[in-house]
Every structure is written in structure tokens, then in C-alpha cells.
């Protein structure tokens, strides 16, 4: 193995490790993300990291056809993000269910504030 191949092997190994770390961090945001737009954004980022990963694999294996796959994945990711944005616009601020603690807590707090205000108003009316 000559020097050039050694340099490339080292760099691709480093890039694979770093990109895997980035993938894990982004997946944590998808699982945790308090709202739906956060998850959509993290999904967009996931697609970008996957494109980078495909490019690194193309360098490592020498199959240049992988670049076309990366371009196709970019197209699909863009269309998915646009579709999700339209969905968020159509859905509005629906109450988040399931693992969205922050969104649910925010909704509860808002509802509590509303009922408190109503009671105060009613009390004022009685007086």
C-alpha cells in the first residue's frame, strides 16, 4: 500500500466515524424533538448526512455510480421536506401526542391559564 492510498484510507475512516456520530446525534433530536417541525428539520439533516455518507462510501469502494444515488436521495429529501411543510401548514398547531412532553406541557399550561382567566372573569362578574 503506497502513501496516497494510506492517506485516503485514513481520511475516509475518519469521515465515516464522524458522519456516524452526526447521524446518531441527529437521530437523538428526532426522538426527543418537542414539536413536529423539529423532527422534520432533523429528518432533512438526516438526508444530508446520508448523502455525505454515500459520497464517502463511493470514495472508499471506488464505485462512482453511488454519486447518482446521492443526487436521487437529495431530490427525494427535498420533496419530503416540502410535503411535510405543506402538512404542517394544513394541520396547524394540533396538540402533540405521545412522547412530546414539552408540547403537551405547553398546551396544558395554556389551557390552565385560559381556565384561570375565565374563573377570574366569572368571579369578577359575581362581585
Amino acid at each position, binding site marked *: 500500500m503506497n*502513501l496516497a492510498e494510506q492517506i*485516503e484510507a485514513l481520511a475516509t475512516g475518519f469521515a465515516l466515524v464522524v458522519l456516524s456520530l452526526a447521524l446518531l*446525534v441527529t437521530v437523538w433530536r428526532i426522538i426527543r424533538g418537542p414539536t413536529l417541525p423539529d423532527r422534520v428539520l432533523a429528518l*432533512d439533516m438526516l438526508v444530508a448526512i446520508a448523502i455525505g455518507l454515500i459520497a464517502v462510501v463511493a470514495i472508499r469502494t471506488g464505485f462512482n455510480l453511488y454519486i447518482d444515488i*446521492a443526487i436521487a436521495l437529495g431530490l427525494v429529501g427535498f420533496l419530503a421536506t416540502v410535503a411535510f411543510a405543506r402538512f404542517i401548514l394544513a394541520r396547524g398547531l394540533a396538540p402533540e401526542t405521545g412522547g412530546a412532553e414539552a408540547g403537551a406541557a405547553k398546551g396544558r399550561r395554556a389551557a390552565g391559564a385560559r381556565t384561570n382567566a375565565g374563573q377570574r372573569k366569572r368571579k369578577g362578574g359575581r362581585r
Partner: protein
Amino acid sequence: MSPFFEIAMAVLVAALLIVGATFSLLAAVGIVRFPDLYTRMHAASKAGTIGSGLLLLAAGIHSLDVAILIRALAGFFFFVLTAPISAHLLAKAAHQAGYRLAKLSVIDQLPQKEEPRRG
């Protein structure tokens, strides 16, 4: 091919790989660390695009083929073209749906509700 040229190409590709992977990691860290959807979007749409674009460019240069290099550049150009569009669309949709900015934000110049969408 002279050995010097080979080593120079390897160093160039390695530098592009390292810088692109680091940009991607920093974008992912920004997505986790920023407090707000609208601030997270900065990290995702700028650093993320540059990261994957530099990696594609490295793959195109490594192939030593003009057709493949042009294809990789076309992919890079496509990402640079679409990332702002999708980020802007997502931010506008989230803002119009009523997702609030973080408490740290100073000013919100976009009117909250332009028109009632469901009459």
C-alpha cells in the same frame, strides 16, 4: 501518473473529506444544542448543505473523470439551490401554524397571523 500528483490528489481529497465531515457533525451538534426550531434551521440548512456538498465534491475529484466531477458538481448545485427553499418553506409553515420563537429571541418581525385560513 507521477507519484507526486497522486499524493497531491490524495491530500486534496482527504482535506475535503475531513472538512466536510466536520461541517456535518457541527450541523448535527447545532441541531441538538440550539433552543428553537428557527435557530436550529441555521445550523441545518447552511452547515449541513456545505458538509454534504464538500463530500460530494471530494467524491467527484477522487474519480479523476470529468463526467463524474460534473455530475457531483450538479448535485452540489442542486443542494445549494434546494436547501434554502425547503428551510424557508418549513420556517414559514411552522410560523404560520403558530409555533412560537424561543424566549431568548429579541424580535419577531413577521406578523403572527396574516389571515384566518379556515373561515
